[in-house]
C-alpha cells in the first residue's frame, strides 16, 4: 500500500513535505504565520496564479507550455477596462467578456500550435510579447480604473470564516479540474497526448482539436485571473502579472507534473503553489528584495526538474 502510494504520488509527497518544512520554518521565524487572518490575507495574491496554474497543469501534462498566459491576463484587463471607460460597456458585462476574450486569445495560440504545427514554446513566446504589446498600446504607461462595483472581491468573505471569494472560486475550479483530469476521457486524452503524441494520434485521439481546446482553456483561465487581479488592485495596467509565468510554471513542475508531458496532478500543483506562496511571503516578511525572491523561485524550478530527472534515471525510466 505504502509503496503503491509512493510510486504513484512520489513527486507530490516531496511537494507536501517541502511545504510543511517551509511553513514550519517561516512560522518559527515569524509568528504571524500562525495567524489565520494574516495568512488568508496574504493568500489573495496566489489565487490568481492558482487559476493560471490549473490550466497550465493540463498544458504541461499534454507536453506543451504556455508562456503567454500572463500577457493574456494583462491584455484582457486592458480590453475590458477600455470597453467600459471609453465605450460605455456596462461593468457587469466584463465578467462574461473577460473569459471570452481570454479564450479567443488562447485559441489563437492553439490554432498556431495545432494547425501551424509550430512548437508551443516559440508561438507563446511570440504572443507573450504581442499580447502584452497590444495591452501597452491600449493603455500606455497609464492605468485604467476597474469599475467601483467590481473592486474588492478579495475582501468579501464567507460569513463567519476567513475564506474569501477568490479562494472559494479557486477551490471549486481545482476540484473540477481534478475531476476532469483524472476522471474523464478528455483528461485521459490529454495525458495520452503528453505521453506519446504520435501514438495518441494513431489511437484515434483528436490531438489537433485537444490542443486548440487546451490553449483556449488556458486563455479562459487567464481571463478569470484577470478579473480577480483587477478587482484586487482596482486598476488595469499593461505590466500586470509580468513575470508571474515563472511562479505558475514552477508551481506546476514542482507539483510533480513532468515537463516532458504525460504525468501530473492537480493536488500536486496546488500544494506546490502553496509552497511558492509560503516561500515568497516568508522572504517578503524577512525583507528580501523582489528580484532576489524571483531568483529563489527560479532556483526552485531548476532544482525540482533536476530532482525529478535524477529520480527518473534512478528508476531506470
Amino acid at each position, binding site marked *: 500500500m505504502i509503496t503503491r502510494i509512493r510510486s504513484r504520488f512520489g513527486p507530490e509527497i516531496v511537494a507536501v513535505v517541502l511545504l510543511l518544512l517551509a511553513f514550519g520554518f517561516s512560522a518559527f521565524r515569524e509568528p504571524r504565520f500562525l495567524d489565520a487572518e494574516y495568512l488568508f490575507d496574504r493568500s489573495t495574491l496566489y489565487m490568481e496564479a492558482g487559476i493560471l496554474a490549473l490550466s497550465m497543469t493540463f498544458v504541461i501534462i499534454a507536453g506543451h507550455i504556455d508562456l503567454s498566459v500572463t500577457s493574456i491576463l494583462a491584455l484582457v484587463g486592458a480590453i475590458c477596462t477600455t470597453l467600459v471607460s471609453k465605450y460605455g460597456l456596462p461593468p457587469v458585462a466584463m465578467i462574461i467578456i473577460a473569459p471570452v476574450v481570454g479564450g479567443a486569445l488562447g485559441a489563437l495560440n492553439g490554432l*498556431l500550435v495545432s494547425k501551424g504545427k*509550430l512548437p508551443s514554446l516559440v*508561438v507563446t513566446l*511570440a504572443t507573450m510579447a504581442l499580447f502584452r*504589446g497590444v495591452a501597452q498600446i491600449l493603455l500606455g504607461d497609464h492605468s485604467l480604473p476597474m469599475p467601483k462595483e467590481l473592486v474588492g472581491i478579495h475582501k468579501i468573505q464567507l460569513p463567519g470564516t476567513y475564506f474569501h471569494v477568490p479562494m472559494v472560486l479557486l477551490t471549486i475550479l481545482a476540484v473540477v479540474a481534478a475531476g476532469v483530469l483524472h476522471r474523464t476521457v478528455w483528461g485521459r486524452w490529454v495525458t495520452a497526448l503528453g505521453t506519446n503524441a504520435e501514438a495518441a494520434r494513431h489511437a484515434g485521439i483528436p490531438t489537433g482539436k485537444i490542443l486548440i481546446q487546451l490553449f483556449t482553456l488556458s486563455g479562459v483561465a487567464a481571463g478569470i485571473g484577470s478579473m480577480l487581479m483587477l478587482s484586487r488592485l482596482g486598476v488595469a495596467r499593461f505590466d500586470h502579472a509580468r513575470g508571474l509565468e*515563472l511562479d505558475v510554471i514552477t508551481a506546476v513542475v514542482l507539483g510533480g507534473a513532468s515537463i516532458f508531458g504525460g504525468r501530473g496532478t492537480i493536488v500536486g500543483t496546488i500544494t506546490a503553489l502553496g509552497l511558492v506562496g509560503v516561500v515568497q511571503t516568508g522572504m517578503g516578511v524577512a525583507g528580501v528584495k523582489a*528580484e532576489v525572491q524571483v*531568483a529563489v*523561485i527560479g532556483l526552485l524550478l531548476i532544482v525540482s*526538474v533536476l530532482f525529478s530527472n535524477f529520480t527518473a534515471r534512478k528508476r531506470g525510466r
Partner: protein
Amino acid sequence: MKKLLARRELSLVLAIILIVGVAIALQPRFASEQNIRSILLWVPLLAVAAMGQTAVIITRGIDVSVGSILGLAGMTTAILLRDYPQLGVGGAAVIGIGLGALLGAINGGMIAFAKVPPIVATLGTLGIYRGLTFIVSGGRQVDDYQLPKDLMNWSLEGPALLSKVPFINSIPWVVWIALLVMILSHLGMTYTRYGRDVYALGGNPDAAALRGIPVNFVTFMAYVLCGIGGGFAGVLYASRYGTVNPSGIGNGFELQVIAAVVIGGVSVFGGTGGAPGVALSCLLLGVVNVALSVLAIADTWQMAIYGLVLLVAIVADERFARSARKRAGEAV
C-alpha cells in the same frame, strides 16, 4: 538549401530598403542625426548577443536568460571599473565576457548533461542571474561619471587609424567590434568542425549521435557561446549607456535577441540559418526602431511589433520548411 537562405537574406534587405523608403517618404524632415545615431548604436549590442543565440537555436534549443546574463555581466564589469579602475577597460571587459561564459556554462551543463529542458533551465536562470545582479550591486546603479572615459569612448570614437577617412571616421569602436564578432562567428559556424557539428545536431539529433558527433559537448558549447555573446553585450551596454541600473540593464532583452535570430532565418526546427541573415535582421530591427521614432509612433508600439514580426517569421519558416520537405519527397 542555399536558395532558401539566399531568399531570406534578400527579403531582409528588401524589408530594410522598404522601411527606410517609407520613413523618408512620410517624413521628409528626418529626425536629428543624433537621435538616429543613438538608436542605431543599439544594433551592435543586439548583434553580438544574437550570434551566440544563433548557435543555441540551430541546435533546437533556446536561451531566455540572455538578457539576465547581459545584466549580470554588464553590472559586474561596471562595478569592477568603478571600484578597481587599475584593472583597465580591457581587463574588466575580459572578466565580463568570462563571467558571461561561466553563466552560459551553467545553463549548458544543466541542459546538455542533466537533461533539463532548455526553457526550464534558462527560465530559472533568467530569475537567478537577475537576482544576483541585485545582490552584487546592492540594488544601486553605477553612474556614468564613475566609469572611465575609455569605456565610453568605445561608443563615441572610431579607430585612430580611420580618423581621416570621411564618413567612416564617424563609425565608433562598438560597430567595428560587432562586425568582427559577426565575421568570426560566420567563419566559425561555416568552416570549423564545431560549426558543422552544430548544424548536424540541429538538422537531426539522432543521426548526429549515430555519426559520432559529441552531442552533449556541442550542446553545452552552444550555451557557453550564448553566454559569451551576452557577457560581451553587457560590456558594450556599459559603454553605450554609461549608467548601469540593476533592474534596467538587459531586462526583456532576450525577446529582442530571439526575435533577431528567428527573423534572421534561423529555423526554430533547428539546423538552418546563420550569421549573415541574423546580422541583417539585427539591422532591420534597428531600422524599425528608427522608423518608429521618425514617424513619431510611440515607444509603446515596440513590443507588439516585435511580437507580431516574430510570429510572422515563425509561421513563414514553417511554410518554407514544409515546402522544402515536399520537394525533397519526404512525408509532411
